[in-house]
């Protein structure tokens, strides 16, 4: 069948940035991709998508991992009348070997469009477009090769994390180890949706939060430390004389709590007032490092706007030591999930749930003590639900 004409899409082959159109065309030997090109060109002409509301498809025994997709132009583009997405759980930190990549490519070449997202926004390997009949064969081959599906629907979503200790000097705990551990522990929660709504976990090794955990995860695990920042004064002096950095203005002057003093010779940090924001360390990586007493802060509740408005995660546990097998965090997860599953409304994220029942009540229910670190300030309104003893 002759290659389709795609004048509009062709415009997007131009320019220095790698082109997704070129990518699609690279796989255009697949008839599916031919029709995808045609349908997409049509969308570009008409300024409207041609996918219908997703239907429920999946692999046996799993409730998630596949996003069903059908088009509304089956006559014109029959090859993509079914064009489902498969979410494959990525290796922690998105590390691969060439061999691993080839294995995945071979499976996907045989059973799908050959198009992927590396990676989906939650972190999965996304296999973009196949038929219902291919789902079981793909699943069999994936598990054979040691891979499994990721999450979708009202389940625990595929956890993800930054490179952490694999490559970063600032990692305050083993983000990849932790992510692998929770993913394995909660395979059932990941594959069989049983929550009121989705629940995402993201693990960042330090407060720079390179996986946007605070904005995108129902549970955000953010590495931090409890003791003093490690300072190498000699190295500080080098930065001072290096001419690239104005320590007074750019480092001390930008410390959020103004807890850095710099007299031109020695850098003094009032660690009591340091909020572990990372800025000074970021600015002088050779001179400063997080302290030695490391762990993580656990925050909960981030989500996009739907329904009650977007939320960032908020502090649940100000500091916790991160030691395998992370039993305390698992207990916390179990307690939260139990409460939320029982009392959460349909499609109510845990962040919205907490606001509805009140953080104080939530903490009481899951048996966590209330500490002032959880809030920016105590209540200002006098509507207190006093409980008379």
């Amino acid at each position: 069948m002759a290659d389709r004409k795609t004048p509009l899409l062709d415009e997007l082959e131009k320019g220095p940035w790698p082109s997704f159109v070129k990518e699609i065309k690279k796989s255009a030997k697949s008839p599916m991709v031919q029709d995808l090109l045609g349908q997409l060109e049509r969308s570009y002409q008409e300024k409207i998508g041609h996918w219908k509301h997703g239907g429920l498809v999946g692999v046996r025994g799993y409730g998630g991992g596949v996003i069903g997709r059908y088009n509304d132009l089956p006559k014109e583009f029959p090859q993509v009348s079914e064009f489902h997405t498969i979410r494959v759980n990525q290796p922690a930190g998105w590390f691969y070997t060439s061999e691993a990549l080839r294995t995945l490519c071979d499976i996907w070449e045989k059973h799908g469009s050959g198009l992927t997202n590396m990676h989906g926004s939650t972190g999965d390997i996304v296999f973009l477009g196949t038929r219902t009949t291919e789902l079981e064969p793909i699943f069999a081959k994936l598990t054979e090769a040691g891979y499994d599906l990721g999450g979708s629907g009202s389940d625990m979503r595929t956890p993800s994390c930054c490179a952490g200790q694999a490559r970063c000097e600032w990692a305050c705990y083993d983000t990849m180890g932790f992510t692998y551990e929770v993913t394995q522990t909660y395979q059932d929660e990941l594959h069989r949706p049983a929550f009121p709504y989705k629940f995402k976990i993201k693990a960042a090794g330090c407060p720079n939060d390179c996986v946007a955990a605070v904005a995108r995860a129902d549970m955000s695990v953010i590495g931090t430390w409890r003791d003093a920042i490690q300072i190498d004064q000699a190295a500080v002096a080098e930065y001072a004389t290096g001419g690239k950095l104005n320590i007074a203005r750019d480092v001390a002057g930008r410390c959020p709590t103004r807890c850095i003093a710099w007299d031109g010779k020695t850098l003094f940090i009032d660690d009591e007032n340091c909020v572990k924001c990372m800025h000074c360390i970021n600015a002088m990586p050779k001179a400063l490092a997080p302290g030695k007493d490391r762990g993580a802060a656990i925050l909960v509740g981030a989500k996009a706007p739907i329904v009650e408005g977007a939320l960032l995660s908020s502090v649940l546990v100000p500091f916790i030591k991160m030691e395998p097998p992370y039993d305390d965090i698992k207990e916390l997860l179990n307690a939260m999930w139990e409460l939320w599953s029982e009392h959460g409304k349909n499609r109510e994220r845990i962040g919205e749930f907490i606001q509805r029942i009140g953080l104080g009540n939530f903490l009481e229910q899951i048996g966590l003590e209330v500490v002032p670190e959880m809030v920016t300030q105590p209540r200002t309104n006098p509507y207190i639900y006093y409980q008379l003893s």
Partner: protein
Amino acid sequence: MSAEPAKRKTDIGPPHYEKFLPPVIKENYGKWKYHENPRAGVLVHVAHSGAKLWSVRAATPRLMSIETLRLFAAIADEFCGGYLRFTSRNNVEFLLSDGGKVDPLIARLEKEGYPVGGTGPAITNIVHTQGWVHCHSAASDASGVVKSLMDALFPHFQKMELPAKVRVAFACCLNMCGAVHCSDIAVLAVHRKPPRINNETLPKTCEIPSTVAACPTGAIRPATVDGKQTVQVIEEQCMFCGNCFTVCPSMTMADPENDGISIWVGGKVSNARHEPMFSKLAIPYLPNNPPRWPEVVEAVKHLVEVYAKNARPFERMGEWIERIGWPRFFKLTGLPFTKYHIDDFRHAGESFRRSAHIRQSSQG
């Protein structure tokens, strides 16, 4: 747990990452001392042992053919023992223990059309979503807008000359799969018309109570249209979020004429200096203009330029605006401040200026 026959493998989870780590990482795992960023796209991490790891970061369109993945694999074999990774913003990173191979690798990647950059105070890949390529909710395409934007912002990917990182994100509907709500520059596709209700199909396809419950503003009411149980929408109460469509296929939002794109600024995720912040509305609406969305590209370029010209070192977009104040931001960018910019949802009042702290002298 799983009720499957024993022979069928399930719930095995992802492969263990250790299998994929290069020796230099295995040996120095958790023992890194510091890093340097000698040029855009190249990171050198130095371990306490003295060992060094070079990471070379190349752009990807995220949507990739297996042909490209195989190409990456071949390149990895040739330059770094087959070890590579992808980043949280969809770039690819090749992991070298031999610094001598860095330049040749870069040359090769550039030649293949996967330019190197995106580190440091620069603009890296745009986190984005499916758009017309795969989603039913999309108010615009994702990949096309991103490609057009990155072509225009490309110099900032290759150089590290901005005051700080500028994180750009795109989402094709208010579900915000791109989590655009905390980006320096967020490009968000929007619907602007209430759902069109298909009273024929609705009774069969939608659960009415949950559809009614789905509306954040309570604009949906149960209704009976010629005998059929369906719903109606109080149009003045609709702000086009599309959540009804998510739960009910018979309430479609997409509209070629009125869908388009909004632009938001000043969000951040890191805790560095300022706490994480949401993005705030800069431009309520620009038209959907495929294939290259010129209006959107212009607007974003302009925002980056004004920021680059005025912000101080280490100041993220939102930190810069806080220093100069929003009135000045709108003056410098020449963007109109409209009724749409004032919040009117749940916590709107929290964004009102409740003091006399006003930059009275910056009228000019």
